[in-house]
């Protein structure tokens, strides 16, 4: 079976648990436990191959063009880690079945739990650096979600956020570091990277790469100065703390150090960076753990301290120390996970985690107490338990280190001191809460936990004992297989025995034990008198405060940067956009000079020049008058539009000319309708143009002239150069045989590029509906509500200057009577013209767009001359239905082709012989053109009538008592 399944199974399980009912916790635990057990069993069955030093590799191609593959790589070290992840995962599943309350949403818990397991397996089994980083980030994310599992609690929210930010920043550093490393080595493949240690260390980028990767490791493993997030993460449910924040995820940092040990270690940089962080964290964590009063926080600080120990071991640049580091990773995972679970039981059964209140629990829960005591002893480094062995190896390494004299002297001393501290906090946990007079004021009466809740702890403690008593028999082969890849292939000579004779490390161990017991007694007496309730010397300095003030400063800086660099004002934004476009065009023109071509030119005619003299005056005039004389500007703009339209006609584009002229009419009408709601010129406002105003206008003018000149030069270059080979000849030669029409532009629109047109009419319909929706909520400015002056001059009782209401029922009257009659007479004529243009559109200039706009204009004429109410009492115009109908038949015309096995929107021409009419060619594209027509009519009418209705609404609002006017619009 492919090993990739190892990686997929947890994610698959996560998906399944997420879909199960929320509260079925036994089922969830069963699924999760089964997945973990299966993966663990599978991994363990691979051991014979791993033991022989084989590296199992499996590659799944992902993005071959980028050299990105999903590589699964299992060597001894990865195998050891994966087994720890899955076995402890299975045990924690069993434990949390009893820990989680029936009210907790179990589906989310187990889904995230399994997702984490998958992500963690992804990290340790990665054979590719980038893949490792992806899974690394995934563990941070899932950890965030699990810390914030009880998301209604403030401490959970804050802890989760802090953990995410710290580990997330570390992850980014790691990412950059890995990219640099990949650049140095030339590959992201682990095997290649592991083999090129000397090359990396000799590279000038080595210090930077090292710093970035170590930052990733230190943040993840909660090493000083990033340790502060781990105690806050204790807001997570205890199974999560046991699994993620002691046994697995926080080990990812030291995993990384071990993984890169053959590549990056062996230098002064490595020693001081990694070793320095390690020793500081070791001592600091142990020191703080002595004074904490919350069970989980004691364990959190002790975890920090132990991780410091492992970091230090890897930092010592000695293969023997690296072996000890690997050994301690396993040992710590076993005893710390069991301690967390025991702490969870105590919390669960007594309702408190305060060490000061917990006393004599051994009477109530002898089983749990015994287990917790053995595990604490392992944590303290008591002989015959696994913690003793790796601690002994560690002490030996500190003694036999050869370095600077001060280091040689200080390191053993600090190591002994930290070991003594470890004895103190282990005693506080393992002895302090279980012995003494039983406390009576607990929130709950403690009793023994369910049997199956204790089973995981029993198994783990059994491992602690077995390894501690007979290390060579039990853990020997595993350690050898796991440590071999870390030290680069050749294992140093070491002996896994409980008794090595009277040596320096043994003396140091004994000193630490005795010192620790004495220290514990001393501290207990002092704390009994109410002293040392907080951590001496360090309680003032608080990592959380530093973190939060940094966060605040970063937020402020970001806000300031937005203020300085960003703007919400439209004018500067547009200026920058246009200026950038010009600059880019200028840069491009330097590469490809704007030289004129030698295409044969058309001789200029006087008529055309005169035409555009008018056009230019119109354009410039519109630009000048748009500020104070809107009506003039709209008229001039229409003039420029008409000249444009004539230009299209001039240069053989009849379809464009037709469309442009009708669009022009509609656009101008639209503007005229809108003018009413714009503010009047404030004549009393005396303007004092400052120097700034003038400079800004000059600047804009320069930009406008530059843009215009650029456009002119560019288009002249295009017009004179020979046209490149385009796809146009295809359309020309296929329009008649393929599309069944001789008007190539129309055939392109409704046949070759019909999908594009379908999109366009959809946009048109959407715009019309948006306009309608926007205007429904339209609140006119107060000064525009009053009737225009012309209408105010009407006699009383007259609502409009168009129609006299007293006679509106019979016949429209008033001074618009003549135009109204004429436009009504013109209506059928306009419709006939539209039908003509529509029907001939496939072969002659015309088509759906033009015809649709003409129908719309014919109807608009009635609105303009007879008034909105008159039209709507006489004709049932339902624009929204036109749009819907058009889009529907457009889609049907397209889907019809599918039914016959052709691609969407393929057209077909039917040849019919009808009496009287003779042979008729009916292309299916005509149906599509009909759709275009309907949508154009509907959209245009909807937009313009919605605007026209505003006058009615406000009029009624100002005359009738009810301000809400029911629009006669039909949508």
């Amino acid at each position, binding site marked *: 079976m492919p090993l990739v399944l190892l990686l997929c199974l947890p994610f698959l399980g996560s998906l399944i648990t997420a879909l199960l009912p929320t509260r079925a916790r036994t089922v969830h635990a069963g699924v999760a436990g089964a997945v973990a057990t299966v993966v663990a069993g599978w991994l363990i069955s691979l051991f014979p191959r791993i033991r022989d030093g084989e590296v199992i590799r499996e590659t799944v191609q992902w993005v071959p063009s980028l050299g990105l593959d999903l590589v699964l790589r299992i060597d001894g070290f990865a195998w050891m880690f994966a087994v720890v992840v899955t076995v402890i995962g299975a045990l924690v599943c069993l434990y949390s079945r009893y820990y989680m309350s029936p009210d907790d949403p179990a589906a989310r818990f187990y889904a995230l739990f399994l997702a984490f397991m998958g992500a963690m397996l992804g990290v340790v089994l990665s054979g590719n650096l980038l893949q490792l980083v992806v899974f690394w980030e995934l563990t941070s994310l899932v950890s965030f979600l699990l810390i914030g599992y009880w998301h209604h609690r403030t401490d959970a929210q804050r802890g989760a956020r802090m953990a995410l930010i710290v580990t997330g920043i570390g992850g980014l550093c790691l990412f950059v570091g890995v990219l640099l490393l990949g650049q140095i080595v030339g590959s992201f493949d682990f095997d290649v990277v592991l083999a090129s240690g000397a090359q990396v260390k000799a590279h000038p980028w080595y210090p930077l790469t090292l710093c970035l990767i170590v930052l990733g490791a230190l943040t993840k493993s909660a090493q000083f100065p990033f340790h502060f997030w781990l105690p806050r993460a204790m807001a997570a449910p205890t199974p999560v703390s046991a699994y993620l924040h002691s046994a697995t995820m926080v080990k990812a940092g030291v995993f990384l150090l071990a993984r890169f040990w053959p590549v990056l270690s062996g230098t002064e940089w490595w020693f001081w960076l990694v070793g320095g962080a390690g020793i500081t964290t070791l001592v600091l964590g142990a020191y703080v753990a002595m004074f904490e009063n919350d069970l989980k926080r004691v364990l959190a600080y002790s975890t920090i301290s132990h991780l410091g120990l492992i970091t230090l071991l890897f930092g010592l640049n000695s293969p023997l120390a690296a072996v000890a580091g690997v050994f301690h990773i396993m040992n710590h995972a076993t005893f710390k996970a069991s301690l967390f679970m025991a702490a969870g039981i105590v919390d669960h059964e007594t309702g408190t985690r305060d060490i000061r209140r917990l006393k004599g629990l051994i009477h109530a829960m002898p089983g749990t107490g015994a287990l917790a005591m053995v595990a604490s002893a392992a944590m303290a480094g008591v002989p015959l338990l696994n913690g003793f062995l790796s601690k002994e190896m560690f002490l030996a390494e500190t003694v036999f280190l050869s370095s600077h004299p001060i280091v040689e002297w200080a390191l053993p001393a600090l190591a002994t001191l930290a070991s003594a501290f470890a004895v103190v906090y282990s005693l506080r946990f393992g002895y302090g809460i279980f012995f003494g007079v039983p406390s009576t004021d607990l929130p709950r009466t403690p009793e023994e936990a369910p049997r199956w809740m204790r089973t995981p702890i029993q198994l783990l403690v059994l491992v602690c004992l077995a390894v501690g008593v007979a290390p060579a028999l039990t853990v020997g082969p595993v350690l050898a297989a796991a440590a071999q890849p870390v030290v680069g292939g050749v294992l140093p000579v070491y002996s896994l025995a409980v008794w090595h004779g009277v040596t320096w490390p043994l003396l140091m161990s004994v000193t630490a034990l005795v010192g620790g017991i004495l220290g514990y007694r001393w501290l207990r007496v002092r704390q009994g008198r109410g002293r040392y309730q907080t951590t001496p010397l360090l309680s003032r300095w608080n990592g959380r405060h530093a973190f939060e003030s940094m966060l605040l400063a970063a937020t402020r800086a970001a806000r300031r940067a937005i203020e300085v660099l960003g703007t919400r004002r439209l004018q500067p934004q547009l200026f920058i956009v246009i200026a950038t476009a010009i600059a880019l065009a200028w840069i491009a023109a330097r590469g490809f000079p704007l030289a004129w071509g030698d295409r044969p*030119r058309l001789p200029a005619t006087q008529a055309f020049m005169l035409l555009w003299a008018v056009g230019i005056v119109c354009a410039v005039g519109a*630009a000048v008058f748009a500020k104070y004389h809107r009506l003039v500007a*709209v008229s001039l*703009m229409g003039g420029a539009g008409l000249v444009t339209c004539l230009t299209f006609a001039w240069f*053989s584009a009849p379809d*464009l000319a037709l469309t442009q002229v009708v669009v022009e009419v509609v656009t101008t009408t639209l503007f005229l309708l809108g003018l009413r709601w714009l503010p009047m010129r404030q004549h009393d406002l005396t303007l004092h143009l400052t120097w700034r105003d003038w400079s800004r206008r000059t600047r804009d003018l320069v930009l406008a002239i530059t843009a215009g000149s*650029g456009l002119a030069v560019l288009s002249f270059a*295009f*017009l004179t150069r020979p*046209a490149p080979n385009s796809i146009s000849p295809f359309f020309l030669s296929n329009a008649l045989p393929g599309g069944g029409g001789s008007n190539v532009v129309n055939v392109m629109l409704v046949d070759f590029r019909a999908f594009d047109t379908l999109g366009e009419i959809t946009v048109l319909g959407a715009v019309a509906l948006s306009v309608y929706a926007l205007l429904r909520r339209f609140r006119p400015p107060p000064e525009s509500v009053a009737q225009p002056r012309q209408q105010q001059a009407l006699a009383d009782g007259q609502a409009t200057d168009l129609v006299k209401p007293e006679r509106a029922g019979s016949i429209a009257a008033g001074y618009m009577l003549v135009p109204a009659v004429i436009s009504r007479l013109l209506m059928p004529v306009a419709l006939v013209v539209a039908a003509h243009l529509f029907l001939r559109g496939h072969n002659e200039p015309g088509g759906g767009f033009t015809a649709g706009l003409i129908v719309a204009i014919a109807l608009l004429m009635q609105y303009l001359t007879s008034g909105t109410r008159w039209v709507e009492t006489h004709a049932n115009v339902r624009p929204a239905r036109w749009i819907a109908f058009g889009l529907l038949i457009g889609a049907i015309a397209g889907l019809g082709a599918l039914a016959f096995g052709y691609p969407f929107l393929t057209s077909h021409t039917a040849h019919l012989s009808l009496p009287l009419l003779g042979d008729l060619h009916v292309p299916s594209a005509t149906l599509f053109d009909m759709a275009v027509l309907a949508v154009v009519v509907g959209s245009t009418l909807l937009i313009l009538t919605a605007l026209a209705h505003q006058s009615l609404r406000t009029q009624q609002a100002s005359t009738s008592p009810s301000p809400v006017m029911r629009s006669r619009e039909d949508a």
Partner: protein
Amino acid sequence: MEVVLALVIGVLGGAGVWLILRPRTFQVVMGLVLLSYAVNLFIFSMGSLVIDRPPIVTPGHAASLEHYSDPMPQALVLTAIVIGFATTALFLVVLLASRGFSGTDHVDGVRGDP
């Protein structure tokens, strides 16, 4: 003819850019309309300037670019004209809504510089 058309495109574009940079919403909408004329003419001129040869296939003339003007830019511009109308309508209504909502016709919705 080419010089005239290029000049015209330049003038329309320049006038449009000038208006787009103005502070009043109405000016900006007018600027967009003028700019769309310029751009439509520009795209249209990508084909070739020919007189009296509309892209309507007639018997007796081979279907090639020598006998007809280029249909492709025309089809593109036709689409652009209609979409241009739709955007203008939308902008105009947004302008009116913004004016009703904020009480000013300044582009930023606050009474700014004249």
